[in-house]
């Protein structure tokens, strides 16, 4: 289970003078629960796109252990992401017309034609674990809270080393959001995965161990969560 380290990472967008992201150094130890907050446009999404290998920085190193994502081609980064990263997004991105179970199994199906029966059993167990009672139900008929829980099950199916969640509770009510936040932390701990959460949700931040604050593409605060409440309030 590798650590994440960023070195001299810069990302600029055409037409913008200031870099969208400028991180001289960042180290996240394996198994850390990290919250990333900041106003919109601060570079949070840019940061996650980089650490899951969806985009590459203009310069710098983004290393998971010995693997430098900044130096890998698109195909290698796809393979890395499929093997090591579980992703939960604000809008769930479940696929209508498929059952909850088929949605959970979808990422596995991209890589092999024949599905390992053990994987299917694991998907069913995970759905039960996240509290989705009817795995064969079409996903569009579920409640929003259930949908995000299906997405969480999908993210951990392939035993990722890192779980990345982009505003996982932002489109849920407080109760459903709490349930999803609890599941993310519990599953990350059970799978021994690093958990990186981009969020505005103070209650979700409170469940994390470390709190990173980005403003204008720079890290302005990086504190343990025990003292993060005050920092979060200061930022607002």
């Amino acid at each position: 289970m590798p650590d994440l380290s960023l070195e001299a990472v810069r990302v600029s967008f055409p037409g913008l003078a200031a870099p969208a992201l400028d991180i001289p150094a960042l180290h996240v130890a394996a198994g850390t629960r990290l919250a990333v907050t900041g106003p919109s446009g601060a570079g949070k999404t840019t940061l996650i796109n980089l650490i899951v290998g969806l985009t590459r920085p203009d310069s710098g190193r983004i290393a998971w252990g010995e693997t430098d994502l900044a130096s890998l081609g698109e195909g290698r980064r796809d393979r890395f992401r499929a093997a090591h990263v579980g992703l939960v997004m604000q809008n769930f991105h479940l696929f209508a017309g498929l059952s909850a179970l088929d949605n959970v199994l979808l990422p596995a199906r991209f890589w092999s034609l024949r599905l390992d029966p053990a994987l299917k059993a694991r998907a069913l167990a995970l759905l039960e674990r996240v509290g989705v009672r009817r795995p064969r139900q079409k996903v569009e008929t579920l409640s929003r809270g259930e949908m995000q829980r299906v997405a969480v099950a999908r993210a951990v199916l392939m035993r990722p080393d890192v779980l990345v969640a982009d505003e996982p509770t932002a489109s849920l009510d407080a109760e459903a959001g709490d349930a999803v936040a609890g599941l993310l932390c519990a599953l990350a701990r059970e799978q021994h995965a690093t958990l990186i959460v981009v969020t505005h949700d103070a209650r979700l931040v409170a469940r994390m161990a470390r709190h990173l604050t980005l403003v204008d593409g720079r890290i302005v605060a990086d504190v343990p969560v025990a003292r993060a409440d005050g920092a979060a309030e200061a930022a607002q």
Partner: protein
Amino acid sequence: MIPLGFILADLRRLWLGALAIVLLIALATALGMAVQLQERALRLGSARAADRFDIVVGAAGSETQLVLSAVFLQAAPLPLMDGSVLKALAEDPRVAYAAPVGFGDSFEGQPIVGTIAAFAREAGGGALSEGQVFDALDEAVVGARVPLALGGVIKPMHGLPGEGGHTHSEIAYRVVGRMAPTGTPWDRAILVPIEAVWRLHGMGDAHAWPRRVEGEAEHAHGLGGDSDHLGSPWPQATPGVPAVIVKARTIADAYRLRAQYRKPPTLAVFPAEVLVRLYGTLGDARLLLGGIALGAQALVIVAVMLVSAVHLAQRRAQIAALRALGAPRRAIFALVWSEVMALVGAGAMLGAGLGFLAARMVATQLTRQSGIVLPVEFAPEDLVFLALLLGVAALAAMVPAVMAYRQPATIGLSA
């Protein structure tokens, strides 16, 4: 790679657009298919219709018109040929039979053809399906599709089918026999003794019209000697005929006869050779129609590509999400390509069926009008056509697939 269930769910979700694309492709395919099937049916049908006609001899003029009129009974005036030709042919030892065909009258849109009794049997495939051949001037044998029963009465109308004209009041034919169906224009013909046609038009000996009134005892003998005699041997002063259909005894005889009568003032043709030339023309028309159909298909394929490109823009978020979830780029390519191909494939299959139905409907209509049975059937070249269409579509589907493949994937696009 991309699970089938995902593609199906996707197409189900977008069913309205998918249906529109399938129908568009189906219609374009049907157009091309129908042209191809119809042309082949026309070729097969006309070749079969000309099968029984060895040599057609007529007055010098257009070979094509001679065949169209004598074999396909197309209504058009032919120049008359001197009656001595008929007499000479009938008495030629190389000839099995020489049947005159004389036109000029019709009955309710069906051509009345003057000929000899032997040909009435021959034109119907060698046997009658009911009744007997004509044996008197006022008897007629009808084709299989003529809506008259035995004993029915035919009052000839002067003029070819479709032309206006006066009704001949001098004679009414009585149906005495019906030919077996042949799938040729002769199924719609009414065959009567050529002598009756001659007389009706005042040709040959201007005898009084023989009366055959029931109960009139004198009818058999009271009509003036040999005027009741039908068919060969022909008299010295045989009236002119537009065409003679000749059956030779051997193939060598057929070639010799054709050579002998090719010189003016007569014309002798094998219907097949004329048909081959006609198919050449038909082929040109088919090429044109086929070109139009192909153009329609090309337009449809371009339209499909355009629609997929626009549609793809709306699916950027879905595709980005799939990539974020770990789908490799080739899976995205496969997804878009398979969806386009599924629609094109379904459209092509549906189009082949629709084209077949359309060709069948046109063929049925043509059969009703001309009597020529047109066999609409699939042939290996139709598969080649479909394979070509799918091949082009497979290439064209790469365009949106490559666009999807190259689309940068990032999360956060979705909001």
